[in-house]
């Protein structure tokens, strides 16, 4: 059990800066998810915490102890790899016991710990098997078991579920959540899957190009995305973003076609300035006739519980609407669509950062 603190952490590969100064304090027992698109530096950051990559700048502390100069073996962490990285020549038992044997634990203690982990993960029947004789899901569990038995200060996960099929992934996600509730070990979890992030995280750190775009609880990140990047990355389908402009009094914003939205709180300081206006597809409502937006339907996707409508505004801008229930319109039809004022997100047109509200 321990805190993990990253202080202005940077990483360069030659001239390429992969991590550009990240600050985050992970509380004892917290589950932090590092979320971002492929290549944004998530694995690099995690591997720096593990000690598998050197630290170019800044400080990493585990349990209050700076670990910059320590070998992985001296950091008291356990890691679950995307490809599981099991020892192929060892039985499931030996895979889990390996780290304990190295630490010189008594045989009985090793037996007990492995037995307990095997029970939690339902691996009891497979202890004598080699990894090659297991299914993907079972290997995944062995990798988890190998981490659990160590009782480390922190768990590190690098996309542990991305090699599993959709059904197994959901199942393992629930198991990881349950495990975390039960063990309460500080965890850093890397993923590019927003559903994993939303369901597992106490807090999410959204990364983009080696920078932390936002740190917050799953709901904070969803309800108040700090930037256009976060707004576009979290939510499915992604948030609609339109070019707009504050009116002369700063009371509302208007689209190029003239459609106007009143703001919940006027911004006289921004009067006349250009802006990016964001609305989530699920917050748009189809109205009987007075909705401010006129959307021509291009495509209708029936998901069963929801219907997603892809269409365009009169000036050609794309617009996605997500409505509960079965399809209610056809391609070529026109809909009147509106949004409540508190569903509008305003972003600086130049920096893409959220405007303070």
């Amino acid at each position: 059990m321990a805190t993990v603190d990253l202080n202005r952490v940077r990483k360069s590969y030659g001239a390429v800066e992969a991590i550009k100064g990240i600050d985050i304090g992970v509380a004892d027992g917290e589950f932090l998810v590092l979320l971002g698109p492929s290549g944004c530096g998530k694995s690099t950051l995690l591997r720096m915490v593990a000690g598998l990559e050197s630290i170019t700048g800044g400080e990493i502390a585990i349990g209050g102890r700076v670990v910059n100069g320590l070998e992985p073996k001296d950091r008291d962490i356990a890691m679950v790899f995307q490809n599981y990285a099991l020892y192929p020549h060892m039985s499931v038992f030996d895979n889990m016991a390996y780290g304990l044997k190295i630490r010189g634990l008594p045989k009985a203690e090793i037996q007990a710990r492995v037995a307990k982990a095997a029970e939690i993960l339902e691996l009891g029947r497979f202890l004598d098997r080699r990894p090659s004789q297991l299914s993907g899901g079972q290997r995944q569990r062995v990798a988890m078991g190998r981490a659990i038995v160590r009782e480390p200060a922190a768990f590190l996960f690098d996309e542990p579920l991305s090699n599993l099929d959709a059904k197994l992934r959901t199942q393992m996600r629930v198991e990881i959540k349950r495990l975390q509730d039960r063990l309460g070990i500080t965890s850093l979890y890397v993923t590019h899957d927003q559903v994993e992030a939303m369901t597992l995280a106490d807090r999410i750190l959204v990364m983009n190009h080696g920078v932390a775009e936002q740190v917050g609880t799953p709901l904070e990140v969803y309800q108040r995305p700090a930037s256009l990047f976060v707004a576009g990355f979290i939510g499915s389908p992604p948030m609609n973003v339109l070019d707009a402009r504050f009116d002369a009094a700063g009371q509302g914003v208007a689209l190029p076609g003239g459609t106007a939205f009143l703001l919940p709180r006027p911004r006289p300081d921004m009067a006349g300035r250009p802006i990016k206006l964001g609305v989530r597809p699920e917050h748009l409502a189809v109205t009987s006739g007075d909705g401010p937006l006129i959307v021509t339907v291009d495509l209708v996707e029936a998901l069963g519980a929801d219907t997603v409508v892809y269409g365009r505004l009169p000036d050609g801008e794309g617009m996605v609407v997500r409505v509960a229930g079965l399809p209610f319109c056809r391609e070529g039809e026109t809909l009147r669509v509106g949004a409540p004022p508190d569903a509008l997100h305003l972003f600086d047109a130049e920096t893409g950062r959220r405007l303070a509200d």
Partner: protein
Amino acid sequence: MQRRVIFDNRALPYLLLAPQVAVTLIFFIWPAAQALWQSVHLQDAFGLRSQFVGLENFQAVLSDPNYLETVKTTIVFSASVTLLSLASALGLAVLADAKIRAAAAYKTLLIWPYALAPAVAAVLWMFIFNPDIGILGRALNNLGYAWDYRLNDGQALTMVILAASWKQVSYNFIFFLAGLQAIPRSVLEAASIDGAGAVRRFWTITFPLLSPTTFFLLVVNIVYAFFETFGTIHALTHGGPGKATETLIFRVYQDGVVNHDLGGSSAQSVILMVIVIALTAIQFRFVERKVHYS
């Protein structure tokens, strides 16, 4: 998973096999058959007539105390060459694997010995170890150590072992390096997170995962030491001084080509074949059990 190639033309697969089959027939099966035939015959000195003598040739060979001496030399020689060339190749491959970016240059350098003809390699070693003109040979003598592999049995054996091992290191190195690079990085990383230092990682992860390569090389190297070191010994010491560096294969040549004892020499060839087949069978039976194939 099953891999199968479908040929449209029925003759094509046989045609593709033909060259290999021809080479095996002409250079292996035919001489082996000849050796078998000759080993049970006695030829006159001019090779004009021969007479069936059953196992007499074998009796003569096996009751010759010199022959047993040669067997001993061969065991010492082959065990040393196999161990030395495997161990140093593995060491070099581990170093290269760690610095893989430099490996291209490193690899080329290490392949050279393999490409050299045995006689050329032997000359090279002579220039190093010759007591009169060799760099190291002279240095040793100047330091007061009486070095002359032409007179000293032990020194001669040491030198042919070194030279023969050196030639085989390249071959082993290539296989070890490929084997090392096939080990997933993440498995070694997992071990280091589990608390294993570099040495323990090597012995508990790398070495076991390398075992298919090591086993294959073990078989190949023993065969090499038994059969293919003739050129090196011939050029360096001629089996001498006395019979200090005479191995079984060298003796086959000596008795057959130099002393014209075709029957005896053939009997030795057959014995040699049996030894190597037995050794290989033993390795597959007992050593291979410890090998982990992924």
